[in-house]
């Protein structure tokens, strides 16, 4: 457990710093309705880093960072002006154009330098798991300075004043995003930016309260996401993004209750859930009736979770064949694994295997693979035939179940028919 803590604590600190500054910028971004501005800024900064790279500067170098920042500032000028164009064409459209052009230009630049592709990827897909206290030491002074500047200028940062203040806003935001995307990656930074801010805005109206709610939600979600990624053995960034998405969904469900309309909210939620389940059931019924041999996602999932469900439609003989093939497939897999293990060990231990023995192991492994595929084919075939047999009855049953669940006002339908 101490291992896990030692590994997860630095990224947690980094996440706290990132939530701290991004929740604030997120509230500003939501107010200005420029949701994807961070993607545009990050992409332009990456374009700057690519230019530096093409000029021969190494990645993660002061000059390279200077190039990124200079490009981000240029983009800030453009973004500040988009507000004035925004009367006819939505500002978001122009931001999107900046994003795609910067991304495409970086690809074109990098195309001539093979190592560049990886370089570009690394700028935009940081890995928060391998970030550390060194990153914290770098970003804390920067974020503190920017936070202080915004606190001093809070009267000017309304998004409605002269364009010079807009430039200051986008320039400081660009500096934040350039550093954070390199640490945590585009996806996670977007979640840090939008989701805590959205939750804050949902439940409060003053900036201070919105910030407080956003920070609390962001920090707790980051901790939960990191813990889940450790416990479930999943990539950290992606797990955290999903955790943030889940928290926003929960907040969204809670929102109507908080607004004081619990009954209406419950009714809508119930109806939506029933329609959803009914639609899934009806689609599964149609799929089973139309193509019984094809994948049946719902039935496959149910059988995966509760294997005894298969005995509902497989005859005893089929069940035996199915189980038998499963046992054999598993045995071939285990034998192949053993053989692989043995080959691995002989690379360094004892006498080296001669070419002939290696070739023999290789062909044994291939045969095991084929035999295993054969057994899996048997399992698939047994199940497909049984499903073909029950297609009509099972599909009708599922359909009836779907109709029962769907919140159709049967009484009114009946009355109208009469």
């Amino acid at each position: 457990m101490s291992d896990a803590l030692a590994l997860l604590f630095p990224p947690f600190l980094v996440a706290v710093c990132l939530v701290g500054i991004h929740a604030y910028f997120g509230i500003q971004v939501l107010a200005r309705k420029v949701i994807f501005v961070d993607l545009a800024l990050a992409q332009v900064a990456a374009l700057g880093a690519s230019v530096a790279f093409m000029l021969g500067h190494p990645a993660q170098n002061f000059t390279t960072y200077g190039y990124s920042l200079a490009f981000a500032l240029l983009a800030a000028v453009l973004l500040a002006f988009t507000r004035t164009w925004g009367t006819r064409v939505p500002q978001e459209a122009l931001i999107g154009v900046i994003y795609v052009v910067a991304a495409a230009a970086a690809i074109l630049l990098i195309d001539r330098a093979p190592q560049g592709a990886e370089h570009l990827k690394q700028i935009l897909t940081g890995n928060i798991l391998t970030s550390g206290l060194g990153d914290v030491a770098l970003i804390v002074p920067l974020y503190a300075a920017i936070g202080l500047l915004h606190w001093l200028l809070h009267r000017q940062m309304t998004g409605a004043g002269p364009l010079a203040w807009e430039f200051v806003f986008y320039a400081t935001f660009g500096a934040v995003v350039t550093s954070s995307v390199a640490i945590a990656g585009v996806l996670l930074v977007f979640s840090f930016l939008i989701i805590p801010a959205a939750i804050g805005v949902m439940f409060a109206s003053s900036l201070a309260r919105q910030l407080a709610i956003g920070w609390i939600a962001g920090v707790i979600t980051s901790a939960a996401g990191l813990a889940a990624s450790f416990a479930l053995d999943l990539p950290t960034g992606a797990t955290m993004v999903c955790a943030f998405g889940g928290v926003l969904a929960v907040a969204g469900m809670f929102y109507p209750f908080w607004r004081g309309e619990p009954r209406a909210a419950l009714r809508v939620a119930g109806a939506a859930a029933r329609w959803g389940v009914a639609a899934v059931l009806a689609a599964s019924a149609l799929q089973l009736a139309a193509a019984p041999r094809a994948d049946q996602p719902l039935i496959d999932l149910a059988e995966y979770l509760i294997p005894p469900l298969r005995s509902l439609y497989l005859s005893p003989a089929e069940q035996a064949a199915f189980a038998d093939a499963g046992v054999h497939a598993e045995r071939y897999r285990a034998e192949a694994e053993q053989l692989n293990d043995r080959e691995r060990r002989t690379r360094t231990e004892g006498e080296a295997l001669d070419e002939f023995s290696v070739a023999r192991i290789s062909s044994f492994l291939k045969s095991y693979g084929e035999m295993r595929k054969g057994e899996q084919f048997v399992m698939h075939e047994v199940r497909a035939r049984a499903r073909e047999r029950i297609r009509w009855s099972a599909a009708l049953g599922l359909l009836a179940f779907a109709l029962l669940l769907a919140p159709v006002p049967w009484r009114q339908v009946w009355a109208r028919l009469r």
Partner: protein
Amino acid sequence: MIRVHLAALVAACCALAFPAHAQDRIDVVTTTTDLRSLTEAVGGERVAVVSIVPAGMDAEEYQAKPQDVSRLRNARMIVRVGLDYDLWAERLLLQAGNSAIRRGGPGYVDASYGIATLEVRGMSVGPGDGHAHGNGNPHYWLDPKNAEIVTGTILEALTRLDPANARSYQANRSAFLARLQLKLAEWEAKLTSLRGMPLVAYHNSWPYFARRFRLDFVAFIEMKPGVPPSPAHLAEIIRSMRARNVKIVVREPHEPKRDVDFVAGKAGAAVVTLAASVGALPQAGDYIALFDANVAALTATAP
């Protein structure tokens, strides 16, 4: 450097002296730079070889360009890695519509033919293996002994396309294999100090290399191609690195430096950058230089 200039000079002189050769050279396309180097070793002056994936790019994530199709259209021979390593070549071949180099055509060479594949796992993914495709680990060119088999396959195809020069191809191959034989003995001698020493790599590119030189790759940082490691996986790697006293982490130039440095730093190991492909490092200019560079880098870091 001087040798490169000299080679260029010699090539230029040859081009001047035998202008006719430039025209009736056989156009060969290979998917990777390693196969280009091996094809050049057999074909010598009589072939013009282009590799689709440029040096230093990750061939497992290559995205084709329009030029590739036109190159394939004009080619008389294609040499590919096979074993699902360069699956994207399948679509390119289809688009090029060149019947000579279609699967089964006279100019189609799957270099994995006859190779004893390691780590075959059937079609489903085995645990802890970096390769999502279970047809066996495709990095077989990293065993110099396998170059014998690959050049043999290439020789056969060149002889089929250009029987008049079969003897010259045969002589080229024999000369190359003789040189490789000497080099192999040298590499094996140099790497004896690393025998059985535990190593960690980012991507599982090294089973053939490990088997030939009796190295012990105990773990891989990447979980699946393109999937970053989970915290539990990293913790386990760092723990086992400390327990087994792993002192070297192997990284390829295109792999994320941050993640590798992080693991090496936590476990107190050194990072060695190796080329798994010709041209991935500037000093790995051809097939033999590739091993020279890797052996030099490994021996320089070995404690």
